[in-house]
């Protein structure tokens, strides 16, 4: 059986990739995708711990998380669509209306 550490390492690597992407990419859609990657990294951790500690709770949480991620993406894409309509851009460096 593959040891637990491997799964956790995979989750950590995925999370790091997602975080890096979310912080550095300019396109809002790509950032949204990166956030999805981070969520999935968390899901991997849920499932890993669920399998290795023998309970079903972690797996149920993972399912919840996937559902919430779907909802979140729906909202996020709707916002981006509106942004495109109103500001003619979804480049994050152009969107700084909420500043001083």
């Amino acid at each position, binding site marked *: 059986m593959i040891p637990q550490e491997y799964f956790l390492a995979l989750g950590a690597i995925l999370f790091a990739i997602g975080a890096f992407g979310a*912080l550095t990419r300019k396109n809002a859609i790509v*950032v949204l995708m990166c956030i999805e990657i981070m969520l999935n990294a968390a899901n991997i951790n849920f499932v890993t711990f669920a399998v290795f500690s023998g309970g079903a709770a972690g797996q149920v949480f993972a399912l919840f998380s996937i559902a919430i991620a779907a909802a979140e993406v729906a909202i996020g894409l709707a916002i981006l669509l509106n942004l495109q309509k109103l500001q003619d851009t979804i480049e994050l460096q152009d*969107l700084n*209306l*909420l*500043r001083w």
Partner: protein
Amino acid sequence: MTFTEYTWLIPLIPIIGLLLAAAFGKKTPEGGGYFVVGAVAVACFVSLMVAYEFFTGDGSPVYDTTIWIDLGTINGTQYQFEMGYYVDYLTALLLIVVSILCTLIVIYSLGYMHEEGERKRRYYVEIALFITGMLGMVVASNYLTAFVFWEIMGLCSYLLIGFWYYKPSAAKAAKKAFLTTRIGDISFMLGIIALFGAFGTLNYHELFNPEFIESFEVNYGLLLFAMLCFFGAAVGKSAQFPLHDWLPDAMEGPTTVSALIHAATMVKAGVYLVARSFPLMVDTPEVMIVIAVVGGFTAFFAATQALNNFNIKRVLAYSTISQLGFMFLALGCGGYIIATAGTDEHLLEVGNAGYMAGVFHLMNHAFFKALLFLSAGAVIHAVHTEDMRKMGGLSKKLKITSLVMLIGALAIAGIPPFSGFWSKDLILESTIAAAEVNSWFWILYIAATVTAFMTAFYMFRLWFMTFKGEESEAAHHAHEAPAVMWAPLVVLAIAACITGLFLLGPDGGLPAVIYTVSPEGNAIPGETLGLGWIEKLFTAWPTYVSLAMATFGIGIAYLAYYKKTLSLDFFAKGSNRKVYDVLQRRYYFPEFYDFVGEKGMYGLARLVDFIDRKVVDGVVNAIANVAVGTSGRFRKAQTGFTQTYAAVIVAAVSVILVLLYLFAEVR
């Protein structure tokens, strides 16, 4: 003791008159004046009955109190204030004087204020309240309720002096009177607080009970402070130096108000307060010296200003200040003798004579000063001017007025057998007695004697200028006042003739009216002076000194203003005029007050303004500015870029995680 039980009603009866006059004054004749006359007359009747019952009683104080404010016990002191009445010799005497005078003055007002029209209702309402204040102050059973009535009088004096408020001078005089007496009021309040701190009670029947006082470990400093404050209050109310200057200006009110303020109420309240606090004050010789010196100085100081004034009412105003000074001089001298007497019975007796002289003069002065003011009112009513230079030759037209005013002038000048002579002589006698204890008092005696001369001079200057000499233009149209005005004058003139003879009453007489302090400090009725005193009086040299002074003063006035053989122009010419001008300008006291007001008070106000605007507001603004400045810098951190925020969050979480890993046991 049927009436005594209802003593507490006395101040309330004028209130009924007030309410009736206020409610129906518009529809009834004289602006509801008859209601007030009726109410004051009833109050007068009750007062006289109370006084009668007291004098026929056993002489111990009668009092009844009920709890007014109970704040419970705080730190071992019971904060409980009572209200009620307290009748002793002094109260009874004041009740007689005040109620009779108020009644006569209100009756006189019916004639004097007849032409005032719509404003009469306000006049009668205010005057009823004023009378309530004085009567309430007299019958009050403790200092706190006395203070309440004292303040009512202060308010009413403001309202009545400013009765013709559309005249700027009257409005100014009212403000001046109110603000100046206010200094005294604050002093009274401080005294009450200090007295309560010293004894834990303000009730007369406890404070004047030697056994009660002896059961206390009296803090002498606190007592001294309280007594000084009480005298300070009297200085404000009774217009003594240096708070005297409001009183001449108070002449802006109607003459009846002047009579009420100067004869029966207001200024007498200050003397009454000192006389009332006498049993406590005799424990503090320092205060007594202050009272005697201030009184003696004021008597002299005010008399000089009356010498060359041309306003008939102002001359009387200065003479009021001067005579009040005499009363304080007597009280101070008598008290000083008692304070230093120890158990020497002869000295105690002499000291009591001083106290008696002060109170006796209070009574006599009340009658003859009311007479003088009301006569002056009759003159003003007839000629419509207050300037004595425009009068003259009025005696033919105003026969009754000139006669009664002559009686008043003789009384105040101190010619026997009119009332002023007896009390003034007693005062001078007590000054000499005090001088025998402490020779510095000779200065006060000399000042008082010179004042007696000046008094005689300016009073007869007034009388000759007004009633004798060439008939002036104003005199042509003059006519005698109506009966409602001259009848009270005649009553007062009779009083001015006979009140001095109360001293000679067969058994009792006035001395029994006044309480004295026994060696143990008990308040007991004094011995009657009797006829033996007269013999003693007319064989003693000071009597002849003061008589000579009075005659001399009258003589000079006669020569200068009636015969015109003696010219006093010398004093009004060239370099001599400086003194004359100083007197005319009232020793520059109004200027001094203005200076104090402008430089002192306004400067202080500006300082406070500066502190408020710059220091207090400055601190608040500085804090706000620091907040604005720093936030101005820090808000640059808000870039609006989503990814910056995310980066900060990630960095912060990372740091927290690292710290937790390093320091907390989460491994």
